[in-house]
């Protein structure tokens, strides 16, 4: 038993869980709005998954193509998301992204420039105009470093290597959070009327993923258990180009910029197979021959885009089909070739970290030979259902921003929309949380000792058992199930099997035991994270089983067509008696002036 009076306690107005782009931006916004803010993060500050974002941040600044504006960006985002996005989020995102990018420069960001000194913008899949503000191929690092340095300069409290395992509530309102220091294993309690979840995604539930160990769906699970609903969980984005060899780096991302800067996909026969996979929906804007596709890089006005730059879901499916048809590369991917199309000097200047990554990890010189790539689990479109303007969930005081929030990207996210999403909605969540926390400063409900004791006991349970399951092997089995049965291509019988296997895993995970003591014990940390991964996996499998159509990041072998009826339905996962249930909700109606954007031409 843990004596609650010995546990470290802190009190804040706004508690931000997660220190990636969204969390840092939320904390800065809340601080600027006058709130007392703390950031809690599982890793060291500045290590969050945002650093992995490579290509850029999409914002219709019109620096390269003056025809670009928020309406075009909005339209691209909705079309990329197969019209399942929350229109209001897509609208706010497209409208506010340019300002969010510009303010990063106030804080020291150094983006690549156009000849007249403005922020340069690059092409990416699904974006009609070159729109991604970037720094070589390390834009995410630039973004997180800028925000990190800003947060440090503002003196915001950061609790590093600290994991939240439970949110406290009283009368339906958030009252705080419970966590542990990874370093010492000691517990910590935060009293706060508002919590902003910015915990990122769920990729660690899959075997081949570009995501790090942190991506265990903590925020998704915390929200679910607090009573919020998760929307669009069936939509998981498999990035078309991850490394496939050597085995130890399988899944590590190969940025879409390789294709944006001229790289093409070929199968083992040397054919640019993407021309065979252009869907009806994108026919009018995609080149159908190599000559036109190649001209597009220099003349975007009179040519249509190469099919390699179709949205990610289309490209991932095409690669998957080529490999299945026996036209894959030696290590089970396809070839991504930029070496034969661009000079070595150009490649090294535009894609320095890709060059470095392949050289160091795979011993491949991308300026001289093609890369082998294949799909990798990259991003979850689904997340906490929030109010578009404030990012508050259905639970009072609980906010979510970034990947952990749902709705913005619909059925498929466009490359580059993630970094701008973090900034736009991180800021909105921070402002709204600060306003809510400081507007009603009345009597704050303190957290009861019973709640604290219960949370502490739950966290310590794996130490109490002897000779139970090893958390590492349960995690491996979970990743295997999700990869095999709820992966890129899905079928009803396989998903049913996945659900029954997940049930078995739940039982096994209730019997986890860990060796050693509480000080920096990764086995214990994993045991606690597994709980969240299982919850999220159940949501994905159940929602995917429910949606009997194919759309965006959800492809059904048994229901290959996209159905109009499903085009107006969102699936929400909620927790009912410790089991996930799925309910259908109608998509919010888009106002006419936005609808018209899709009807012209």
């Amino acid at each position, binding site marked *: 038993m843990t004596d609650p009076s010995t546990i470290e306690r802190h009190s804040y107005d706004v508690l931000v869980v997660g220190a990636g782009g969204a969390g840092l931006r939320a904390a800065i916004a809340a601080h600027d709005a006058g709130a007392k803010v703390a950031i809690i993060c599982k890793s060291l500050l500045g290590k969050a998954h945002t650093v992995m974002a490579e290509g850029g941040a999409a914002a219709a600044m019109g620096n390269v193509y003056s025809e670009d504006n928020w309406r075009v960006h909005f339209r691209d985002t909705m079309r990329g998301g197969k019209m399942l996005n929350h229109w209001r989020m897509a609208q706010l995102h497209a409208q506010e992204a340019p300002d969010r990018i510009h303010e990063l*420069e*106030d804080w020291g960001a150094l983006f690549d420039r156009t000849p007249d000194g*403005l922020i340069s913008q690059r092409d990416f899949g699904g974006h009609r105009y070159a729109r991604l503000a970037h720094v070589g191929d390390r834009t995410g690092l630039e973004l997180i470093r800028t925000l990190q340095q800003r947060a440090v300069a503002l003196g915001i409290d950061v609790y590093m290597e600290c994991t939240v395992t439970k949110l406290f509530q009283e009368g339906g309102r958030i009252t705080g959070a419970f966590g542990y220091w990874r*370093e010492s294993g000691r517990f910590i309690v935060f009293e706060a009327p508002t919590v902003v979840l910015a915990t990122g995604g769920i990729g660690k539930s899959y075997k081949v993923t570009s995501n790090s160990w942190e991506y265990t769906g903590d925020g998704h699970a915390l929200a679910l258990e607090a009573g919020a609903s998760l929307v669009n969980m069936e939509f998981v984005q498999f990035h078309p180009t991850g490394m496939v060899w050597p085995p130890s780096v399988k899944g590590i991302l190969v940025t879409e910029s390789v294709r944006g800067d001229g790289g093409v996909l070929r199968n083992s026969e040397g054919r640019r197979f993407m021309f065979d996979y252009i869907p009806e929906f994108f026919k009018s804007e995609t080149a159908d021959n190599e000559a036109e596709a190649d001209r597009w890089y220099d003349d975007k006005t009179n040519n249509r885009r190469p099919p390699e730059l179709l949205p990610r879901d289309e490209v991932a499916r095409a690669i998957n089909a080529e490999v299945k048809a026996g036209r894959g590369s030696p290590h089970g991917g396809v070839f991504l070739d930029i070496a034969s199309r661009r000079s070595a000097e150009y490649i090294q200047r535009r894609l320095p970290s890709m060059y470095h990554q392949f050289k160091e990890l795979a011993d491949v010189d991308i300026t001289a030979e093609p890369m082998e790539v294949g799909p990798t689990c990259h991003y979850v479109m689904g997340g906490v259902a929030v109010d578009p303007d404030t990012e508050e969930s259905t639970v009072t005081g609980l906010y979510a921003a970034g990947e952990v929030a749902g709705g913005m990207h619909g059925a498929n996210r466009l490359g580059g929309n993630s970094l701008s999403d973090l900034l736009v909605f991180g800021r909105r969540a921070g402002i709204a949380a600060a306003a809510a926390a400081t507007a009603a400063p009345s009597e704050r409900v303190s957290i009861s000792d019973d709640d604290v004791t219960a949370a502490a006991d739950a966290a310590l349970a794996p130490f109490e058992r002897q000779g139970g399951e090893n958390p590492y092997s349960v995690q491996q089995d979970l990743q295997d199930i999700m990869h095999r049965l709820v992966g890129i291509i899905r079928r009803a019988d396989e998903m049913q099997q996945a659900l029954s296997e997940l049930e078995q895993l739940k039982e096994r995970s209730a019997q986890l035991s860990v060796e050693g003591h509480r000080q920096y014990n990764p086995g214990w940390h994993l045991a606690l994270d597994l709980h969240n991964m299982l919850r999220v996996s159940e949501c994905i499998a159940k929602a995917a089983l429910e949606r009997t159509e194919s759309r965006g990041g959800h492809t059904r072998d048994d229901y290959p067509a996209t159905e109009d009826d499903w085009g107006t339905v969102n699936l929400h996962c909620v927790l009912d008696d410790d089991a996930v249930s799925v309910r259908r909700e109608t998509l919010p109606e888009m106002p006419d002036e936005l609808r018209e954007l899709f009807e012209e031409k």
Partner: protein
Amino acid sequence: MGYDLNMKVWRGDESGGELTDYVVPVEEGEVVLDALHRLQATQAGDLAVRWNCKAGKCGSCSAEINGKPRLTCMTRLSVFEPGETVTVTPLRTFPVIRDLVTDVSYNYEKAKKVPPLSPEPRQADGTYRMQQEDVERGQEFRKCIECFLCQSVCHVIRDHEDNKEAFSGPRLFLRYAELEMHPLETKDHREAAKAEAGVGLCNITKCCTEVCPESIKITDNAIIPVKERVVDRSYDPLVWLGSKIFRRSADD
């Protein structure tokens, strides 16, 4: 083609510890971090290792391999001789927490001292104009992934604990250099680099540059230019005289 790798891994905490022998089955193409993960999953579930991206982009998995500070995720096993024992210890410059994890808060404390950017006002259209050639120097420094290998290898603090107070280390010198070269910055940070960060303690023996996994030319492109700027301000009577006579700033 798998084989058995002989490893020595330091296990312990601040009260003591030792190099422990392990034999780990590994595969072709793997890196040291893969071997550590396999160790964790099969033989030592509580082995403390800090890591995140496993792609050389986050700078979490720093340790010392056969005595040299390196990222474990970017050290391929193929660089070792067959049969060679791979020894992995925590960074030996920072206090140890447990096993391969050290307390790197020194670096975060030093980061708090770096002044924020004080940019000139925006243009009338709400943008900043900067030329590519003016941002490139700073961009090199901003490639830093904060793995703190340079901090760890720097003998100024590695071998002289008492210098930690006065010396910020190579990673932070990148920050001062960046401010000094930032096209929008309006303030002078030379005195801060000298007095607060202690750039004078650096004797440019270049180990920081040698270990940088991002190949940032820390010494040539950041530290020496900062030292030269300090010379401009503190040790160069000609420049000093010129600035008095012509009343112009030295860094227009």
